[in-house]
């Protein structure tokens, strides 16, 4: 595996992605997709 020269830059991208998941994609589907009446 290559050694990335600027780990802080990649770490920042990682944090952006984690935030996009936790604050965007996961809650979007948790709030909308679950069928509480019939399941699924």
């Amino acid at each position, binding site marked *: 595996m290559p050694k990335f020269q600027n780990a802080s830059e990649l770490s920042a991208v990682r944090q952006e992605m984690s935030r996009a998941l936790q604050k*965007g994609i996961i809650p979007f*589907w948790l709030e909308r997709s679950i069928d509480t*009446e*019939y399941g*699924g």
Partner: protein
Amino acid sequence: MLSFDGKGDFTGDDEKYIVTQSRMLWGFSHLIPYALEEQRPQMAQAAQSGFDFLRTNFWDSEYGGFVWKTARNGQVLDRAKLTYGESFAVYALSEYALRFQDPAALRMAEEAFNLLESRAADNAFGGYYENLEADWSFSPSGAGGGDRKSLDIHMHLLEAFTTLAEASGDPIHLRRLREVMSLILCRMVNHEAGFGYNQFDLQFNRIPAICINRTWNADRETNECIEKALDTTSYGHNVELSWLMDRALRLTGGEKPPILRRLLDHALRYGCDTVYGGIYRDGVAEEPALVHDKEWWQNFESMVGFLNGYCRFGEEAYLAAFQQTWGFIKSCFLHPLLGESRQLLDREGNPIVDQLGNPWKGIYHTGRALSECIDRLDLLCEKQPR
């Protein structure tokens, strides 16, 4: 329920498909470690609800296998057995079994796998048939899909069998995974130019790609006509194949074939938009892209493929493509307030289809891509993977 417009409001389309129900089950199972602590119990409940709905309503107790579509209440609307749908059920049930150590889910995944082997596998020419009817007889030819095989189906079987083999440890699952990998490499890709062919007859002769009822291009709302259909290729599909094949190789062992890089190099050369960012939708073999629209799943999968390529081969151009694609996704695909991705954009990033969810679009491509990238970024930053 999965159909939401560009404002995140439910559109009223409440039919349930085995593909998307499975993708949501996979997503709520796989993404728990990436979620906030307080989100995890609800995700586990959602996964449980998804598993219960699948085994109660989608399983065909007469012929076996999973039906294609139900109404919201579980009433069966389309009883067909599509290898695409069956493969996603195997993928999701295996992931659920891995996450929750649930033997019932693993048994169901294995039963679905056994049915694919006995009913959908072509023992004369290899591989799997595309579309079958309720009783596993062939669907009609042409748009019915009964007379063809596709890279799409086999790529998703590769994905499903990898997770099934991880969950079961059964040598037969590993053996069939190797066979699917071998078939893709021997029959379905152009090794020199680095792209995948689309559709084949049952003997694996290449044939012009057409839209197939229920599956290939059924999710697309634009209607471009590509004249030279024989060699059309999907950049996002090719890059997705590169990382899925690499993932499978970690399980099966063996040398990395040169095609893993060539798929990326072909997409870099013809599919990446160096002006606006992102990846184009379709092209023809070794020529400039034909369709410059940008589709959400191709862009999310390309991000994983290019980052995986950088991790495996150290090629700086792959890292640049990853960063450029993420930049385009952040600024154009992701809804600034609601957080999910829009479906289809024009070249400059303006929405063509701004839906955030539909019967094909759930948490699978977006959530998976981010989790896969996070794992690789952790490795690059010398942290421990999850």
